[in-house]
């Protein structure tokens, strides 16, 4: 089983990102679930969402304890939230940032999703939407295939800017 924890702020699309990843994984022929810890949701407040991907049906409902991958959509969260809590040894880190940072014991990857969303005018209610570019980054990290990522985005968000943003993120990360 591959377990992902996504840290975001309310309004950035982190919850929808978890659903997109799960849908793309299902298109890859896998089983997947996506869930969120629901609390009074406010724009700007820290939000945690979870994705589980497996070869057989997922029967777990509790929160992910030891993720294989942690994605951080707002690096400011790293100052207030223990984003790497119980991340597996050798686990992956994705940070939405223009600069890379090394975390010993983990492999970390970065891309400037905010810049990509800005370029593609992916804005809802004044917030840049980072979920579709994040899916592109996940495709580059082989969490899901690029084809399935495209298919999932087309199903949930037919506007072509979303696909372009995902492909841009895919292209920005060196394999």
């Amino acid at each position, binding site marked *: 089983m591959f377990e992902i924890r996504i840290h975001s702020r309310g309004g950035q699309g982190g919850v929808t990102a*978890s*659903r997109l990843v*799960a*849908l793309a994984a*299902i298109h890859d022929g896998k*089983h*997947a*679930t*996506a*869930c*969120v810890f*629901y609390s009074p949701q406010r724009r700007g407040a820290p939000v945690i969402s979870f994705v589980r991907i497996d070869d057989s*049906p*997922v*029967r*777990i*409902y*509790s*929160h992910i*304890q030891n993720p294989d991958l942690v994605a951080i959509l707002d690096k400011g969260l790293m100052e207030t939230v223990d984003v790497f809590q119980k991340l597996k040894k050798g686990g992956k880190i994705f940070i939405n940032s223009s600069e890379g940072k090394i975390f010993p014991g983990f492999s970390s990857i970065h891309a400037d999703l905010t810049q990509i969303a800005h370029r593609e005018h992916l804005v809802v209610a004044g917030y840049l939407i980072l979920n579709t570019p994040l899916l592109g980054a996940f495709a580059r990290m082989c969490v899901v295939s690029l084809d399935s990522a495209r298919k999932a985005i087309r199903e949930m968000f037919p506007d072509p800017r979303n696909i372009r943003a995902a492909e841009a993120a895919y292209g920005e990360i060196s394999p």
Partner: protein
Amino acid sequence: MKTIATGNKAVAEAVQQARPAVIAAYPITPQTAIIEQIAEAVSSGTLNSRFISVESEHSAMAACIGASLTGVRTFTATSSQGLLYMHEMTNWAAGSRLPIVMANVNRAVAPGWNIWADHTDSLQERDTGWLQVYAGSVQEAYDSVLMAFPIAEHEDVLLPVMVNLDGFALSHIFQPLETVEIGDFIAPLYLPHAIDTRDPAGYGVLTGPESYFKFRWDIERSMRDSVNVIQSVQEDFSRRFGRSYGFTEDYLCSDAEVVVMAIGTLGKEAEIAVDLLRAEGIKAGSMRLRWLRPFPELNLAGREVVVIDRSYSFGFGGVLATSVRSRINREVYSVIAGLGGQEVSYEDIAGFVRRRCIGREDWFGMNGHV
């Protein structure tokens, strides 16, 4: 068709396929998405039903009762405080022998104000004469709503059915969902005591001590008869659509020495705990209760039983633990866990089994217990 959906969406999909003539409802977290989706389908014309927006859950059930009495299919959805507010009318629905189907998204009862999963709301409706089924996955929520209509509407039953799903844990999780073409799986409703202006009759009139008990017995007789109806509807569903359901979902029970019993998502998560325990050499099994009313026979001879309750009857014990104990005439290990959405993982459940103490009750997380 294969898709991905939340528990709420799965329920709304199934309701749209069952095509109730009347839906009356009031929004409440975490159920609101069910009603929103159905209301949208009605307003866009994809669902040819009457949607009655009411000012309270009490009125939602009253409207369903009035509509159902005319012999048409009805549906509502609620949760927690809403279900409790409906309580007078839930009794009325069952006593009037109306096959109303309701989805209840299980949520804790206030105070303290809490919107997360807990079974106290539906268990306080246990003795009203409603059949109660609890889903353990998004797929099962969808399938259970489809099956609820033919069960409720069967001439041997004619009692309302409540389909329960855990708040957020199931109502808001995204899981794969395979929808079906239902064809003639749900037969047209025939209500023998429907209101008929050509044959006027009185309803809800004073019923004296000489006859009231007969109506109560009649509910119990139908409740007992519903066992065969549930079985045959579940078999018919399996034949048509390939997914099989029982009164319980048993996982590795046949050679188990200890069995975990739970309801809803905790019962599903218990299967992972069983896998862990088996790897350690503990012969464990999981029995997830689907139908709480009618309460099924339990094949637990010769096994120790660990019961997880996500609710409590103050002054006595866990409702499920009490029921199981009385069914098997033996003590169990009772764990009270998951109240108000308390996080309970498969590791925790495996821990309950490892440290079981038959005859004792422990509250998970309290005073170093469990």
